[in-house]
């Protein structure tokens, strides 16, 4: 986390939903910040709580009877404590959101133009004509060809990439200072994804907008984000700059993610299978087990049932986000000792299996 001006500060946010089977603790006490003009990436799998956290920022979980605790400070206002009326003035205005599937996220029966126009007129007192002109301008700005004609088309008449651009245009209508993008490219083809990410980067450069990008794709955050928060089972388990996270990850879950994904160049963090000369062949190392229940999560460290390096005490102590040695801006919620953890990673990244790494790292200490 940089010390520059923080636009958004989430402090101890918890979101719980009462259901028939029990209380689902979707988000369990997380804190993070978004710097003005920078991009924060939130990475996690399904059930990590990343989407619930961002929906709660705009108060979109209030209707579901969610029990929300903590504070979300947008500049000097607390969005959690804000009344619905006041929060409504922030939504789509100072803070805007873009969703995953633009086909289902746009109203199928209204033209794209109408939807853009209403986005502006909900917050500004402008004539329909002026709003329409601005809509055409925005559609052109995000790269939709022939915007004056396409503004009267329906969402299903756009292609996938164009639809997402239209959604982004809609979010930008009121010049928000913060854009939250929830899996904005997951439903798109890879070449279209590249276009949309490039668009978002350009928008940030030109408009000075802060972006929060939520995704499960480590490649996307590596490309887009300045800072990254890794979430697991409703907690943030690691938080660092993008550079640091990929060079010196300090949490077994992050290691697990890095080592289990194939990369386009051939996977670089997995266990060694064979090495002949310069060429290495590595295994994908999956994280064993499956994501935990959010109704009765594991005690102590929530990751401990799946962590190859866990010790018995980890089932009892709840880890807090602590800065790692020599890097105050890099925090990790892990109970392993700093030195030991670093040694483990050194071994893992050169191709040891978890068992080998534990053995090796233990030896070194002795």
């Amino acid at each position, binding site marked *: 986390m940089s010390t520059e001006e923080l636009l958004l500060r989430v402090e101890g946010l918890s979101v719980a939903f009462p259901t028939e089977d029990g209380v689902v603790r979707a988000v369990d006490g997380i804190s993070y910040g978004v710097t003005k003009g920078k991009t924060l990436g939130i990475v996690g799998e399904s059930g990590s709580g990343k989407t619930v956290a961002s929906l709660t920022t705009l108060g979109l979980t209030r209707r579901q009877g969610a029990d929300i605790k903590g504070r979300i400070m947008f500049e000097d206002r607390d969005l959690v404590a804000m009344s619905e009326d006041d929060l409504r003035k922030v939504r789509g205005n100072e803070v805007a959101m873009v*969703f995953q599937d633009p086909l289902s996220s746009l109203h199928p029966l*209204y033209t794209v133009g109408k939807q853009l126009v209403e*986005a502006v007129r909900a917050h500004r007192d402008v004539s329909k004509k002026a709003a329409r002109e601005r809509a055409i301008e925005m559609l052109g700005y995000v790269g939709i060809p022939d915007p004056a004609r396409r503004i009267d088309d329906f969402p299903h008449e756009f292609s996938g990439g164009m639809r997402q651009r239209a959604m982004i245009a809609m979010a930008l209508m009121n010049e928000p200072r913060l854009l939250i993008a929830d899996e904005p490219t997951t439903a798109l083809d890879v070449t279209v994804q590249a276009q949309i990410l490039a668009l978002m980067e350009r928008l940030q450069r030109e408009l000075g907008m802060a972006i929060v990008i939520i995704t499960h794709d480590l490649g996307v955050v590596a490309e887009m984000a300045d800072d990254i928060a890794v979430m697991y089972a409703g907690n943030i388990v690691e938080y660092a700059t993008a550079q640091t996270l990929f060079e010196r990850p300090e949490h077994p879950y992050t290691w697990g993610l890095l080592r289990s994904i194939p990369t386009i160049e051939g996977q670089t963090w997995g266990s060694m299978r064979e090495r002949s000369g310069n060429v290495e062949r590595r295994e994908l190392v999956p994280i064993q087990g499956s994501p935990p229940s959010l109704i009765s999560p594991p005690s102590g460290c929530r990751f401990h049932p799946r962590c190859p390096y866990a010790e018995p005490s980890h089932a009892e102590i709840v880890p807090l986000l602590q800065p790692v040695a020599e890097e105050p801006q890099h925090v990790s919620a892990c109970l392993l000792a700093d030195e030991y953890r670093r040694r483990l990673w050194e071994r893992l990244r050169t191709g040891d299996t978890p068992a080998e790494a534990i053995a090796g790292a233990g030896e070194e200490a002795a």
Partner: protein
Amino acid sequence: MIRYIVRRLLWGVVILVVVCAITFILFRVLPTANPAVLRAGRDPQPKLIHEIEQILGLNKPIYVQLWEYLKEVFFHFNFGYSFYSQAPVLQLIVERLPATVSLCVGGAILWLGGGMLVGIIAGLNRGTYADRFSMTAALVAISAPEFWLGLVALYLFASDIGKIPIFPGAGSYVPFSQDPSKWFGSLILPWIVVAAGSAAVFARLMRGNLADTMSEDFIRTARAKGLPERAVTRQGVRHAVNPAFTAFGLELGFLLGGALLIEIVFNIPGVGTLNYHAILSSDFPVIQGTVLLAAMFIVIMNIVVDVLYAFLDPRVRYS
């Protein structure tokens, strides 16, 4: 779009011809009284019957009869003559049309408006008492036969025989041209009864659709844009109406059927009562005429519904 409408109209004509033919054949095949006998008066002689059959053309082969009938109907708009009163069928129907139209149009308005209103309120407030009450009432309205509802309504509210005499009772219908306010008053109970069943169906549909729609992604987007809840609801209703609208075309048939019975119960001199008396006296031309009229109405209304649907849902336009 024009091509679509023209195509639907042409198909509509085809359907009408088919309906006409089927009705015609049905009446010849059904074991009811020989029309010649009915027209022959008391104690007819076989010779007389034979003569009448010749005049009526009943001795010709059935397909010839059918062809002649179809020719008459579609080229000359001649629906034949009532066996009972010798009056032209078309004239009889036209005389009674205004009453039926009054009943049906009013009923349809009440059906759509009432159904939608109840459906929206129930859909937005799922699980509350208002919801549960209205859905129970809807269940009653759907299950109860219309004539029973009509009779109960008269029993409770008719000004002459009812327990709470607030509305005019049976037989009080007067044409609009004669006395507008009396016309209106006499139709209140019939309108409610005619609309009840269909409105209930519509309400249930709207409720279900709206509840589903409000959890759709685009509603979440609308809220995320900062739209006031009223506007968000409007967007939801707009989407929920579409599938319910297709039910409209289907329900029309039931509306007409219900109207027939209600006319009888409330003694409204419309096409329904005409049909009723014709059935009792085996007056085939009249029955055929009214059936054909009803079929024509339903075919046209369904074309209208299909075309309107293309306006309501831009996704189905180009097919």
